[in-house]
Structure formats: C-alpha cells, structure tokens
C-alpha cells in the first residue's frame, strides 16, 4: 500500500484559506453600517430574487457574500436556530452574539474537517431597541474567525479598498439617506456608479414593532439615493 505524501498542516490550512478567499473574491461585496435609527446593510446584487441580505429574528439580520448556496444554507440554519431558541425559551433570549458564535463553530468545523472550506463570509447584525450604542455587527470568516464591530464593516473580496474609501467619509449616527449614499459610493469607487437596480438594501430599524427587519427597494430606494 502506498503512503500518502506528507503535507505540513500549515500548508494544508494555507491552501484551504487561499481556496476560500479566491471563491469569495469572485463575488461582489457588501457593507453594513449603523445609522441614527439602527443598522443598514447595503449589498451589490443585481438579482431581485436571490438575496444576500435577510431576516433572522426580531432584531437580528443576516448577510452573506461568496458562494450563494453555502451562505443560504447558513442563513436557514440561523433562522432555525433562532426560532427554536425563541420557541423553547423566550423571544428576548435570542441574541446575535450567541448566533455569531454558533456560526463561527460551524464554519470552523467545516474548515478543519471537511474536504472543502465554505467560500463565504457572513455578517450577523443586531440592534438594541433602546440603546444605539449596543448595536452590534459580527463578521464571521470562512475559517470560523469572528470579529465584532460597532460602526461599520465590509465583507467580500475587495474589502480593503472599500473599507479605505468608507473610513475616509464615515461618521456615526447619520440619517439613513446620508449613510446609504456613503455606503453606495464606497462600494462603487471612483470609476463607476451604482444605481438602485444594482443594489440590495435592508435595514434593522428601531421603533417599528417586534420585527425590525425591512427591505428598502423600488421607489423608496431610488429616492434615498
């Protein structure tokens, strides 16, 4: 019986990470940012039906970049996790931090144990109904590493350049329209323009009842831009 070639674990991990990063870089990016009344998520997405941004729970939103079927699986797993938890305990017990940790575990597990890592980066956004300082953005990478942000976060292949453009103009607590324009121009860069049809936008909005998630589309989006 022939022995498999020895490959150093460092090399295995590096190859997997490169593979995942390459897959993610093929897709378009998205930005999430806090604004005066909650969190706005803005993704570059020309499809009107295949969504990158969606609702998980009352105050929790989800967004993914990379391979569609993979982050969609994660989205559904998140909805299931949240709905089961809310059913077993109380709606108030469902929180973004716990969900982000579960996602990190799932992605970490797949990264180290499966043949192929997931080619995704995901975002778990959560708003606090009373205190805007407690709004949270969790960014989870293909290998399960997780980071939390309070102002804004960029997901996707081109994130460094977009982050640079965004940081140059970002200010906390802006109105929805102002914040959204900032996100769109950062996504687009200098040499192209993004219109409503190229975008998928949703907000988690304070003071709108139990379910805070709302899509912004059509005329409303055009007028905000």
């Amino acid at each position, binding site marked *: 019986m022939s022995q498999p070639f020895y490959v150093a674990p460092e090399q295995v991990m590096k190859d997997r990470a490169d593979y995942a990063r390459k897959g993610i870089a093929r897709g378009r990016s998205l930005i999430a940012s806090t604004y005066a009344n909650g969190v706005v998520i803005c993704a570059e997405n020309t499809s009107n039906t295949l969504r990158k941004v969606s609702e998980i729970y009352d105050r929790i939103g989800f967004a993914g970049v990379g391979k569609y079927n993979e982050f969609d699986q994660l989205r*559904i797993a998140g*909805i299931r996790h949240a*709905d089961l938890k*809310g*059913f077993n305990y109380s709606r108030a017990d469902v929180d973004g931090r716990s969900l982000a940790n579960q996602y990190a575990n*799932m992605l970490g597990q797949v990264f180290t144990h499966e043949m192929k890592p997931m080619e995704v980066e995901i975002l778990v956004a959560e708003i606090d109904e009373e205190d805007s300082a407690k709004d949270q953005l969790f960014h989870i990478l293909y290998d399960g590493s997780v980071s939390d942000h309070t102002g804004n976060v960029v997901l996707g292949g081109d994130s460094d350049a977009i982050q640079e453009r965004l940081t140059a103009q970002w200010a906390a607590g802006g109105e929805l329209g102002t914040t959204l324009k900032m996100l769109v121009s950062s996504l687009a860069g200098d040499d192209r323009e993004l219109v409503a049809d190229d975008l998928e936008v949703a907000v988690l909005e304070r003071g709108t009842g139990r379910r805070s998630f709302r899509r912004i589309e059509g005329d409303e989006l055009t007028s905000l831009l």
Partner: protein
Amino acid sequence: MTNVSFDPLDDPGPDFAGLLRKAGLQAPVPQGDVSAAFDVVHGTTCVSLRYADGVVIAGDRRATSGNIISHRSIQKVFAADRHSGVAIAGAAGPAVEMVKLFQLQLEHYEKVEGTTLSLDGKANQLSQMLRNNLPMAMQGLAVVPIFAGYDQASEQGRLFQYDVTGGRYEELDYTATGSGSLHAGTVIKISFVDHMTRAQAIDLAIEALFQAGDSDSATGLPDLIRGVYPVVATITADGFDRVEDPELEERTRHLIDAFTTRGGRDGGNSLSTDGGPR
C-alpha cells in the same frame, strides 16, 4: 447549536413543526384521559364575521375548569401574522401552545422562503396542526379554532371553521366556536347584512358574545368593574388591528344602555337593571 443541518433529502425545509419533530422537541401524547384525571382549563366562545373591509374576529375572556372560573381575562384571539388571526376554543393549554406554534410556523416559512404563505396555505397549515392534535383530543384535550384573514390575492376577508379532526370549512359570512357558539351564532345570523361598516360589525360581535355570556355559564360577560372587555380585532388590507379597550368600553356601554331602554321583565330582553319580575 441544536443540530439544524440536514441531508438534502431529509431536510424539513420551511416547515417549523417538521423541524421540531426532527429536533425531538415535540411533547409526547398523554396516555389516558387527561380531562377525567384533572379539571382541564377551557376557553370558550369566539366569533368571526365578514364586513365591508375584511373580517372581525372576537372572543370573550373567561376560562373555566369544571364549574370554577379559572381566569377572567384570558386571551383567545391572536394575530397569526400581519394579515390573519386565529381564535381558539377548547382546552386552553394545548390551544395556546397551538397558536404559538402556528404563529411561529407562518413567520418561519416567511423568513426561510422569503415570501408569505397564501391564505389558503395558512388555513391548510392549521388543519394539519389540528389533525396532529387528534390523539390529544382523544385524551380530552380538544381544540377548535376559527381562522380568519384578509386574502390579498382576492382582496377580501375570508373565514374558516374547523373541527377536532382537522376538517376545514370555509364560511361565507360568519362563524362561531365554543360552548356559547349556538347563542352567539344565532345573534349574528339574525342581524347579519352584507357590507356592514366597521362599527356595525364590531357592535354585532360584542352583542353576540354578550348574548352568549348571558345564556352560557362558561362564557364571560364584559366586566365593567375590572374593565375587562372581549378581545376584538379587525383584519383588513392594512393588517390585523386589535380594537382598543376605551372604544370597546364605549360600545359595550351603548349596548347595555340599549338593552336597559328596551326593558322587558322576563325572557326577550330582560337585561334591564331596574327590577326583575314583579
């Protein structure tokens, strides 16, 4: 995380009840007749009727166990989602649990699929939940709901009546369930006219529940002392909207004034407060 990832062939999809089954979170069916062993809490009379803009759905506030009034302000009318509502009669524990599951089922579907279920789809879901509850009903824990909603496809209010086996019967004008349903249903049957206004429809629902409470011991009357009125909601193109208590109080007082003015000593409208048989 509870295991929520499944083999594609084994995946429950947007079905939350299916997910609960797979996660092993469904309560076992009791062995033996529960209602023979304990006094089970029962909720009673609910009505629903169609009017010009949609439907009104309403229920009294009493829960009984045997001959004891076990609760004076129980809620039996709930929003199922934005454009539909459900009212329950029967064993209160399983009924409230069923409503909670039904609400979650609709929301879960909406989030997973990205679209809402059709009104027929929602009504069918409730049928299946009742059918699954049949073993419980056999042990004395029957639940009989009403489902009402605004159908955005046909732009009208629609109502559905159920039986314990999950049988679903669409009613055109009105429906009633629970121990006082005979009295309540009769009141609506006599006064129903097509295209009532919101005010007329709410008044009729309140009167129906009042007459049920007047003749059925398990149905509660409006409680002016504690300020407990029936739960009444309208469901229209604008969604589910619970009628506020101050409006209900005013309408209830009007109704009682009307009875008092009509007078009568016995039978008929002997709801007069000034006397009784002389």
